[in-house]
C-alpha cells in the first residue's frame, strides 16, 4: 500500500540553526500539509500546499517557516532559525485529487532543538 514517507526520523539541532524536513507524498496526491505536535499536546495545523503554492497557513506558520516542492516529488518544510519551542513532532500529510479525500500521515520527524 502506498505510504507517505518522511526524513529524517529524528533531527537534533542547535538553536538558531536552519533545518529542512522532507516528505515524499503518495505519488498521485495533490494536496500537502504540515502539522506539528509538541510533546503531550494536540496536533496543530501549520500549512497547506496545493498547485505549488500555499493554500492556507496558521498563525504558528510565521516568517521563520517556509515550504516548497522543489523537484515535484519531495515536499519540504524549512525552519530558518530554530527556537527551543520548535521542538516537536512534525507530520506531513497528503491526500488525493479531491480536498475531501482522507489525509494520510507520514511517520513524522521528531525535531529536538538544543
Amino acid at each position: 500500500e502506498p505510504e507517505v514517507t518522511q526524513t529524517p526520523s529524528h533531527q537534533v539541532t542547535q538553536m538558531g540553526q536552519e533545518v529542512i524536513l522532507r516528505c515524499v507524498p503518495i505519488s498521485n496526491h495533490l494536496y500537502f500539509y504540515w502539522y506539528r505536535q509538541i510533546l503531550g499536546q494536540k496536533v496543530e495545523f501549520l500549512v497547506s500546499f496545493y498547485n505549488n503554492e500555499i493554500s492556507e497557513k496558521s498563525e504558528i506558520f510565521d516568517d521563520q517557516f517556509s515550504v516548497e516542492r522543489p523537484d515535484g516529488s519531495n515536499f519540504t518544510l524549512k525552519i530558518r532559525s530554530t527556537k527551543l519551542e520548535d521542538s516537536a513532532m512534525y507530520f506531513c500529510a497528503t491526500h488525493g485529487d479531491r480536498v475531501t479525500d482522507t489525509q494520510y500521515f507520514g511517520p513524522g520527524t521528531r525535531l529536538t532543538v538544543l
Partner: protein
Amino acid sequence: AQTVTQSQPEMSVQEAETVTLSCTYDTSESDYYLFWYKQPPSRQMILVIRQEAYKQQNATENRFSVNFQKAAKSFSLKISDSQLGDAAMYFCAYMEYGGSQGNLIFGKGTKLSVKP
C-alpha cells in the same frame, strides 16, 4: 472558528471489553467530515474511521464504530472486543467540507490503556 473537544484525557478498558471515547465539536457549517486517528507510542498517525456529516448512517470499520449525533455535535468512537494493540492516543478531528484547504482540526486526545 471550529473547535474539537475530547473531555476524557485518559480511559482504561479490560481486554475483550467495549469502550467508548467521547468527542464534541463546534461548527456553524452543515457539511463537514469527522475522523478518529490513532497514535500508538511510535507516534505515527493512523486513520481509524471517517464520517461524512451528510450521511445519517454511522460509520463502522470492523471493531470500530461511531455514534454520530449531528444535532448534538457529538462524535463518539466505540471500540468493541478491545485488544492490547488498541492501546494508544486517540484523536478526534474535524475537516470542513467544500473548502479549498482541507486542513484538520484536532482535539487534545484521549489516552487509552488496555488491561490484559
